[in-house]
């Protein structure tokens, strides 16, 4: 029966319409909507399954399903040995995680927010980042530090700091900052597979936001290379560079500016260190103007580094005006809503800065 059916099918698609209805129908590649949270969850699930050396530890990651539910369902699936609840002792459990990585495992060390990583920063920098160098190549540290970074909503001064600049400063660390779900999944998987310490700066406000996941991104082997930025929107008038949540803000600003004939090229950095300066340079050599956007403080920040690198490279001669940095206000994060709203870049600040840079 099956053989005759195959004969029929091989005879081509121009056969009886009734047969076409029974034909194997290849559907178009189906994109799905997936939240950043689910994308991170999927990334960890796939990597835990793929490599038994991978494990997750942190506060509330197991039985509570994750403080922000990013690790939901993982403890039920993988058990106590792979998903580990720690006491509230960052310096302690980070040290344990680094040691585990040195001994051959592949830990994912979760910080409930990166503000708490300050308690453990000596382990991240001195034990993880520098060891391969100090040992002249003898001892590698394949570890991932992940968690939400930057401002949330109303969590005030001690819980709103952006650590992109702090970690981006250190040789020996790789630092990634995903924006959408594809970024989140692809970068986290790359981070877990990377042989070096990688800091993954997520964003709590993006966890619940759904984004389109291409069919390619749904695959179990989908990774995004660390160190490569992505052009989210093409344009000729001006280049906007951002990471994490502010990529979305830039795209919103670009949509408004397009109505006035200003076409922004929006670059999603994806990786803070090593930074893909080449993509920024190529873009600036086309548009002649650059605005950087970040949530962190201005002094010694991501924008400051981009300015310096542009100035040191070939793109400098193509600038028609100085680079503009749009950043968080240089103050600790206030609690009151009106003050908090004015402490961070809004879409209107980006639009204002673009026009000022273009002298419009």
């Amino acid at each position, binding site marked *: 029966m099956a053989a005759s059916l195959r004969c029929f099918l091989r005879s081509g698609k121009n056969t009886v319409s009734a047969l076409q209805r029974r034909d194997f129908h290849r559907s178009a590649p189906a994109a799905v909507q997936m939240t950043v949270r689910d994308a991170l969850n999927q990334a960890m699930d796939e990597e835990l399954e793929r490599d038994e050396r991978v494990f997750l530890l942190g506060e509330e990651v197991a039985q509570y399903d994750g403080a922000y539910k990013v690790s939901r369902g993982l403890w039920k699936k993988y058990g106590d040995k792979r998903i580990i609840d720690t006491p509230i002792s960052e310096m302690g459990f980070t040290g344990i995680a680094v040691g585990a990585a040195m001994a051959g495992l592949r830990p994912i060390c979760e910080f409930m927010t990166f503000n708490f990583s300050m308690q453990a920063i000596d382990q991240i920098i001195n034990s993880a980042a520098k060891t391969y160098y100090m040992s002249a190549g003898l001892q590698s540290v394949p570890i991932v530090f992940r968690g939400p970074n930057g401002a949330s909503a*109303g969590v005030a001064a001690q819980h709103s700091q952006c650590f992109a600049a702090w970690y981006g400063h250190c040789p020996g660390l790789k630092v990634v900052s995903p924006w959408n779900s594809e970024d989140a999944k692809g970068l986290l998987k790359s981070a877990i597979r990377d042989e070096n310490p990688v800091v993954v700066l997520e964003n709590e406000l993006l966890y619940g936001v759904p984004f389109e996941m291409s069919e390619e991104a749904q695959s179990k082997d989908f990774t995004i290379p660390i160190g490569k930025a992505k052009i989210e929107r093409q344009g000729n008038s001006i280049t906007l560079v951002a990471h994490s949540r502010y990529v979305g803000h830039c795209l919103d600003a670009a949509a408004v500016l397009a109505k006035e004939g200003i076409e922004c090229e929006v670059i999603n950095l994806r990786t803070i260190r090593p930074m893909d300066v080449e993509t920024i340079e190529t873009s600036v050599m086309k548009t002649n103007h650059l605005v950087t956007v970040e949530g962190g403080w201005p002094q010694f920040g991501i924008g400051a580094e981009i300015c310096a690198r542009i100035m040191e490279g070939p793109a400098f001669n193509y600038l028609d005006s100085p680079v503009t940095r*749009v950043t968080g206000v240089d103050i600790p994060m206030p*609690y009151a809503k009106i003050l908090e709203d004015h402490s961070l870049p809004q879409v209107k600040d980006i639009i204002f800065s673009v026009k000022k840079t273009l002298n419009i």
Partner: protein
Amino acid sequence: MSARTFTDFTTQATFEIKKCDLFKLDEGPATQVVLTRDEGLQYYRTIQIMRRMELKADQLYKQKMIRGFCHLYDGQEACAVGLEASINLSDHLITAYRAHGYTYTRGGTVKEIMAELTGRRGGIAKGKGGSMHMYCKNFYGGNGIIGAQGQIFETYNMAALWKLPVIFVCENNRYGMGTSVERAAASTDYYKRGEFIPGLRVDGMDVLCVREATRFAADHCRSGKVCLKFLFTYRYHGHSMSDPGLSYRTREEIREVRSKSDPISMLKDHMLSQNMASVEELKGIDVEVRKEIEDAAQFATTDPEPPLEELCNHIFYNEPPFEVRGTNPWTKLKSIS
């Protein structure tokens, strides 16, 4: 109907309280304590204010008038009230993020506390701190940190080494966010963890126990020694307003604590059983407290938000005004000390 006059009430009574477990101490706090009518009424009022204030905060949070993190203290009131009863306002106190109760006992008003929670200019930190960052004279907040970290042991060491007059208080409410203490601590006998620092395990649900233990600890410290105190207590709410508090403990457990060990019920029983107050009198206090909380909530929801001119102030102390960068190079803001 004859009204009961104050002369009908007992002016003071003696109570037997739970004995404390001792560590590196030959004797502990008294187990026979005297409570006067005035003290009782004052503790009752204070605990009710704290209880009602936290419940009102719960309500305001659900109405989205309070944002961010909000860690409520209801259930643990006896700790703050008992503690403050045996120290002076000139002593210094610092705590973690579950701080609304202490802000009150240290001298903050309900109005100021609630307006801080709603982020208004009348808040105790002018709306800039929020729930976790409230301060008073000799009260250093309100902090995002916790004491399960190694720093606490470093502190024990230095306090003992230099004989600093410190009382370390651990309010053990059985859960570190969603993790029970049994799952997080190799030893839950926290009062013994100071090793070379004496310790007391105290029933933190009974304001008299806490008061007595604090009196003992304060005397101990003022005579030049360091002391560790560990209070066994309970929180009715989850860890914060984002935590329903039911995935890691049962409703039965919460109900049982409420029925057997609630600090308000216990104090009420003490007062009524010894004829130190009447049911009507306590009800009268409840009514006053309710009104005070309502007025404070009214203020907290109508007071305006801080003015934008405040945005960059209070970066440095005692400095001449300086310029602060806004979100872009053309926005220059001003900071005043």
